[in-house]
């Protein structure tokens, strides 16, 4: 029997007022509702009286759990999904002391008339650390998406916001939540944002947000998924272990272009410092895209397999040897690498462990390749290349401006400050984890799986991502040994492969299959 999802707005208001009363003043006392705007008469906007800050020392003296609730529908190829959007804050609190930690900003999309015992709920977040979750929210599987049109760069901006035919709302309810200091999420006194700018404190706060969301919305019985991108991979691994320990059984962890181990991705080190074997298949497929390989290659999957084998048998041992000895590589080896990737001989001779930054700037003379999506290019010296990554510069202003107008006009949520697409957390992040200076989160994933052998893991990567290369994740995950149900998918495109129209369709189909396999 379907159980209708109860709107939580009035409940949230009660909490708002209670917290304002306990907080001892400070701007939280005014009535949080505003007159209903045109649109669905059942919509209830929310004008948050608070201002939020991304600074490390920022701290809310009073917080609220107010939210705007609006009604929408999405037509997915003839199937109409009626849903609510809830935009506002929930307070994550310490599980034992109940001390409030932070007010997390989130936007939740909930399909109407579903059985909460079988309807999945998925929590989405980007990485950075310090990034808001706007990239996933407006680019991937939400009910609306920005029509980016990668890898072309001739489209006018801002990109149109369109109904998303690849929305996952036909499969799961979707919660986009921003890290503390990003979006409109902020720490609550005596904590500051900086308190949660570390691998462990961040993941613990996300655990407490998930716990709060599930309790407030009566979703503890629902199948549960987390989907994190990039640094969100580290966050997801740590979070999965913490949630299992806390008794929140997860169904699936979706790692989208993740970094899982900061010691194994050579991009975070300077050129020549670390072994870049994990990048070789990315160089090869990107060279194939630009028709620079010899022979030419058109089947990415087959070519990736060929280059993985070459990397394991020949390239990786040669790089290890070179890092130790610094002896020039043989002409034969260099010739092979030139043929496989299209990168010139002098680059391999200068640094056999070819760094992605070098590849990005040197593969094609006078052209800068995108770091996030190497297929997106710009002439050296052009405005698009000025920040070092045309694929990121091209999309930033559209995402930043659209999230702000979308929250106000469509979701009917406003605060005293505008949505921050990032904080500066990355500069003062506490990277320590598990007794090491930097996070290696494979033990966390292993611990999550030991606690919940039914937990399923899915990985999505782009073949043309020079930030988190797909093969490095494969090498990292191989450390886990056999993981039943593990699915690894690679797609044409970059770090945000969902911005590629053809790949987004494929990712959606693969995600739907993964959800079906994880609902046991």
């Amino acid at each position, binding site marked *: 029997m379907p159980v209708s999802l109860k709107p939580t707005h009035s409940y949230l208001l009660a909490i708002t007022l209670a917290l304002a009363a306990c907080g001892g003043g400070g701007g939280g006392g005014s009535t949080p509702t505003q007159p209903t705007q045109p649109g669905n008469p059942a919509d209830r906007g929310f004008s948050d009286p608070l201002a939020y800050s991304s600074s490390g020392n920022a701290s809310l003296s009073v917080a609220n759990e107010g939210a705007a609730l609006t009604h929408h529908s999405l037509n997915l190829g003839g199937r109409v999904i009626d849903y609510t959007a809830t935009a506002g804050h929930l307070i994550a609190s310490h599980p*034992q002391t109940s001390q409030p930690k932070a007010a997390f900003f989130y936007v939740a999309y909930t399909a109407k008339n579903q059985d909460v015992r079988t309807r999945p709920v998925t929590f989405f977040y980007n990485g950075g650390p310090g990034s808001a979750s706007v990239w996933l929210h407006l680019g991937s599987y939400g009910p609306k998406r920005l029509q980016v049109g990668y890898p072309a760069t001739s489209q006018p901006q801002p990109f149109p916001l369109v109904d998303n035919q690849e929305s996952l709302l036909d499969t799961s309810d979707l919660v986009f939540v921003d890290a503390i200091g990003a979006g409109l999420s902020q720490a609550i006194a005596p904590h500051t944002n900086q308190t949660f700018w570390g691998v462990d404190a961040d993941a613990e706060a996300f655990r407490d947000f998930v716990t709060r969301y599930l309790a407030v919305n009566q979703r503890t019985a629902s199948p549960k998924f987390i989907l994190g991108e990039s640094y969100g991979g580290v966050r997801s691994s740590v979070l999965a272990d913490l949630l299992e*320990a*806390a008794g929140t059984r997860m169904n699936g962890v979706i790692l989208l272009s993740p970094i899982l181990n900061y010691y194994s991705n050579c991009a*975070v080190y300077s050129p020549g*410092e670390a072994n870049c074997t994990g990048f070789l298949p990315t160089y090869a497929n990107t060279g194939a895209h630009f028709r620079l390989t010899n022979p030419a290659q058109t089947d990415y999957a087959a070519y990736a397999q060929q280059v993985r084998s070459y990397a394991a048998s020949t390239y990786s041992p040669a790089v290890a040897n070179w890092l130790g000895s610094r002896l020039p590589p043989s002409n034969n080896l260099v010739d092979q690498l030139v043929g496989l990737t299209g990168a010139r001989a002098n680059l391999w001779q200068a640094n056999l462990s070819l760094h992605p930054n*070098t590849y990005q700037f040197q593969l094609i003379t006078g052209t800068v390749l995108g770091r996030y999506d190497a297929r997106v290019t710009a002439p050296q010296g052009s405005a698009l290349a000025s*920040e070092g990554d045309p694929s990121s510069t091209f999309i930033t202003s559209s995402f930043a401006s659209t999230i702000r107008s979308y929250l106000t006009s469509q979701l009917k949520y406003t605060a005293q400050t505008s949505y921050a697409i990032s904080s500066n957390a990355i500069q003062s992040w506490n990277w320590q984890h598990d007794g090491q200076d*930097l996070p290696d989160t*494979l033990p966390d994933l292993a611990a999550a799986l030991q606690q919940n052998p039914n937990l399923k893991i899915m990985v999505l990567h782009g073949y043309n991502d020079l930030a988190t290369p797909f093969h490095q994740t494969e090498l990292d995950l191989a450390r886990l040994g056999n993981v039943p149900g593990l699915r690894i998918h690679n797609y044409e495109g970059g770090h945000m492969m969902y911005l590629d129209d053809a790949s987004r369709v494929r990712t959606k189909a693969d995600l739907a299959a993964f959800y079906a396999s994880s609902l046991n």
Partner: protein
Amino acid sequence: MPHRHLAPMLAALLALAVQAAPGNGDSGTQPEDRSHLPQLGDPYLPPAARKPAQRPPLAGAALQAQARAKLQQRFAAADPLKTGSISLAQAKAAGLGYVVQHFAEIDRQGSGRVSFEQVERHQQGAR
């Protein structure tokens, strides 16, 4: 397998060599202020944070043992007197939600206490 093999001086020399390599231009330079970039140029480490691994990355059975040790350590933190088992109250105080929720099923004899091994068996046979 160690990831970084270089003494700092050698690394510095190499960086110079790479910079000086023909056709290499200004590659490898990244803006230090990344606040304008989507996701802040993720993944990225500020230079001061770039440190070598303190231990080799474990794999296979050794990794599984490391993960299990992590779980044992979490359990042991709820058992300060090292009795080898914990009560429901101790599980609650330590935030071991799984143990709290399933305490009665795990403690089949009704002893009022559960061991790490009992919890582990329950988790791995559960559902």
